[in-house]
């Protein structure tokens, strides 16, 4: 059994559980839609602000939902059984990260048409680029969210701790996402932001699985 298959099994299981319960996705979608609508109405329909509002909504929704699948493992008393399967615990990280990434990408795809209507944006011909930018940002958010979910799972007051930990560390991802989305919408060159976001993604995706394994040592 290779790591890819094990990670796939974890991701499939997490997505199946989410499909049956629809707790995390529902909370994240409703929260992100409310943030987008609230900020959209409060700041006005100026298209310049669209990218910032989209990424703030996505980032805050990630903070709300990232810890939920891991917390459900702990509450359902399945975490120990999961950790006792033989094989590297990095595979568990990759599976959980992939499932969270899929949920966040779905959220990003749901937010785009709303932003199109609210801010009067012509998204259709820029859709592939916007989805690409979303995927890059989501990779970073999912990498960090999965790691901090593991860190907070046995801590009291984890609901408060998650945003406190995740918000400052994910700031480079959100900021780069805003700038890249802005550049895509205005058809400008992405400049250094594309490289910066890719570099953050690589850094987080390389280090987070190792830290996850250490965190789960005596979980």
């Amino acid at each position: 059994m290779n790591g890819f298959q094990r990670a796939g099994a974890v991701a499939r299981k997490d997505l199946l559980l989410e499909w049956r319960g629809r707790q995390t996705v529902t909370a994240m979608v409703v929260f992100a839609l409310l943030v987008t609508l609230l900020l959209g109405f409060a700041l006005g329909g100026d298209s310049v602000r669209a990218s910032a509002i989209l990424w703030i909504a996505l980032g805050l929704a990630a903070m709300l939902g990232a810890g939920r699948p891991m917390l459900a493992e702990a509450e359902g008393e399945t975490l120990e059984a999961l950790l006792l399967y033989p094989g590297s615990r990095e595979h568990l990280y990759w599976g959980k990260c992939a499932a969270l990434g899929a949920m966040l990408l779905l959220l990003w795809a749901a937010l785009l048409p709303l932003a199109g209507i609210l801010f009067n944006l012509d998204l259709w011909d820029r859709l592939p680029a916007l989805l690409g930018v979303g995927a890059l940002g989501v990779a970073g958010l999912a990498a960090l969210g999965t790691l901090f979910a593991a860190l907070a799972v046995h801590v009291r007051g984890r609901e408060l701790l998650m945003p406190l930990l995740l918000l400052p560390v994910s700031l480079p991802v959100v900021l780069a996402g805003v700038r890249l989305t802005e550049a895509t919408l205005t058809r400008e060159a992405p400049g250094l932001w594309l490289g910066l976001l890719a570099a953050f993604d690589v850094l987080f995706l390389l280090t987070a699985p190792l830290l996850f394994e250490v965190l789960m040592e005596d979980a």
Partner: protein
Amino acid sequence: MLPPPIETQGLSRRFGLHHALRDVTLTLPPATVLLLVGPNGAGKTTLLRLLATALRPSRGGGSVFGHDLVREPDAVRRVTALVGAVGGVYASLTGFENLAFAAAMTGAASGRPDILTLLERVGLGPAGGQPVRTYSQGMRRRLVLARAWLLRPRLLLLDDPYGGMDAEGADLVSALVGEIRAAGGAVVLATHEWERGLTLADRILALVDGRQADAADVQGVSTSRLRAPVGGAA
């Protein structure tokens, strides 16, 4: 000569200032069933979790089939299955999906027919397609036993396996224990229902307040000797 299924030296575990387990030293030969008895809080579950590598020892150490509990936890996990007092199964997945996930995680060569046969064997054939949240406690226990069967461990760690089980379920426990012993493996059975456990066990270890209170072969143990550390009748 093959290494023993379990060998521990001064195995201890502390949670903060509380000593859950102190200086447990034991060697278990192959094809042996160890009955672990003791009152609540005696350290039975802690010992099982240490042997399963779910916990790291605070002091002392041990090995499972020659694999060190701290240095080679993955090798220990490949030959061990912990059937806990709490299920460790996903309530929103069906019984079949839970076993398929376990098979995928361990690489157990089990296709759909194998899993269906296993569900039939533990009496969950008709319920295999239903979500586990609709199962009774006994049915969940049977599913966890089916998972242990699927993993084919050489060391089986059973924590209170009779809780919520009917007579047929208890027979399943006996069948699983018998299979592992016949294959040269070992079983540690922690239970308060020690009279039931005595029918399966070769050796007994009694724990009180995290310490080894008594250890003996089953033949050499009288009911009164066993009742003293356990603190009551079965």
